């Protein structure tokens, strides 16, 4: 539509074509539509429930934080958790111990598939109850076969163990050659000297490449804001392990580093009624894991052919 009209006066700012009311209205209608479409396209952002605070957003990378800055970060986390849950937690930043490399041994002859480890882990590590996140998944396998395609995840009989099956709990294997660490584009996850593969929840961007890379499906993503009932919050926290996560970050088993780096056993081991789980320092010749790896005969590492070198050794002994 031409805006040229013979009787139109030229604008003082030198613009040759004037803006008629018609063209203004048309252009603003188009602009409004465009803006509305943009707003509609961005509307999922309305669903995000916890944006990081400015301090968290401007926080430096974990490995570059000085101890004073780390203390401030921990204090900020304690304040935020107290504001949200009403309980003041104790958040630490435990460093790996020297001369320690963790190994987990799991006796498949003894596991009865009771899933107590699953729920003890959930309680200890402040995982979301709804939507549900559980780091450990117990597989019901058929006797005589290690075919995980035939495993049942949601078994719920009257009594376990059921005849003809054995039970295999799977969690993060804390690989010595972790594929998840290789694919992280921002280095939010890395392998620590004591063998634990950790995630910095404040640095993770939630791209889920690590979830795709992990052959054991160890990594869990927070699709929604995690909901933890206040009365079940575990206030003994660590920066890299069980502080409450936010929507949009990955999480996984971290060998309960808030307990194990302080010298105690992980929660899954403490609750196992048959004592199938054994944990310790492989560099210590007197630990029970050293005894097991020296004396038991049949060891299985999951998906060994992929070369991930997991720290989890499954064995049979009867």
């Amino acid at each position: 539509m031409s805006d040229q009209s013979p009787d139109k006066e030229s604008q003082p700012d030198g613009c040759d074509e004037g803006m008629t009311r018609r063209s203004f209205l048309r252009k603003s209608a188009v602009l409004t539509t465009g803006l509305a479409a943009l707003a509609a396209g961005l509307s999922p952002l309305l669903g995000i429930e916890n944006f990081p605070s400015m301090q968290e957003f401007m926080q430096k990378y974990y490995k570059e934080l000085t101890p004073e800055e780390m203390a401030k970060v921990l204090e900020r986390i304690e304040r935020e958790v107290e504001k949200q849950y009403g309980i003041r937690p104790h958040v630490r930043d435990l460093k790996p111990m020297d001369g320690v490399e963790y190994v987990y041994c799991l006796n498949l002859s003894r596991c009865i598939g009771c899933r107590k480890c699953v729920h003890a882990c959930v309680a200890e590590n402040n995982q979301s109850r709804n939507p549900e996140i559980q780091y450990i998944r117990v597989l019901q396998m058929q006797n005589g076969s290690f075919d995980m395609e035939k495993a049942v995840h949601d078994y719920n009989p009257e009594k376990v163990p059921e005849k003809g099956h054995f039970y295999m709990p799977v969690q993060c294997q804390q690989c010595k050659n972790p594929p998840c660490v290789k694919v992280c584009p921002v280095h939010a996850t890395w392998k620590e000297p004591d063998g634990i593969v950790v995630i910095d929840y404040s640095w993770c961007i939630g791209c889920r490449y690590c979830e795709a890379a992990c052959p054991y499906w160890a990594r869990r993503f927070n699709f929604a804001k995690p909901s933890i009932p206040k009365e079940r919050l575990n206030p003994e926290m660590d920066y890299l392990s069980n502080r409450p996560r936010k929507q949009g970050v990955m999480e996984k088993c971290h060998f309960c580093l808030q307990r194990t780096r302080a010298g105690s056993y992980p929660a899954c081991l403490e609750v196992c009624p048959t004592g199938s789980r054994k944990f310790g320092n492989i560099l210590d010749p007197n630990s029970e894991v050293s005894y097991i790896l020296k004396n038991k005969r049949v060891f299985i590492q999951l998906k060994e052919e992929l070369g991930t070198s997991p720290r989890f050794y499954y064995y049979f002994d009867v």
Partner: protein
Amino acid sequence: MKDSPKITVVLNVLIVVFLALAVTFLVRSRNNQVALQKIPLVDPDYIKTATVRASYAELAGAKEDLSDFDCYGCHEKGKPPTLRFDDKHILIVPEEHKDIVMGHGRNNRNNICTNCHDETNLELFQTRDGRQLKFSESSQLCGSCHGPNYRDWEAGAHGRTSGYWKRDMGPIVRKDCVSCHNPHSPKFPGRHPAPPPNMLHPLAKPTPVAEGEH
């Protein structure tokens, strides 16, 4: 722009349609929150770490009631109790001890009280190699027959060890055999498993494999 009324009309209609779509989208996405399925909280019994039984040493240590272990409260000293068997040579458990269900060993091999209890002194155990053991030393009695498990238990590889893996940072708690195993019927009965995972979508069930097929 061409001075064509058709194009103008079409463009205007498109503008209106897109505006309407945008408004609908905005309004609906605000109100249409997907409801999360109800997932009940797990029963706290499933996260308790206590063993199902308590050994004599634990009961004595906690100053609990030990009257169950007071054999000579009913039995006479110096008069060994007689064992009665039925015609299939299965032990008949007397009425006073009817809470004991004998199931130690397959095919009733070990269901004879005096294999473990010393009939001359009921407050002691006896091993097959002639040792006499107190109630608090019951694990040695078990180990006198179950050697490999006893050796593993001493190393920490059998049974439950809780507390500190780093022994110099804190105490460990080792459980005796009878804290988990009922000595008269040691095989674990089954138990109901804790609730299965709540899938966001159901997993495709594996093709059922017939018996004998691998």
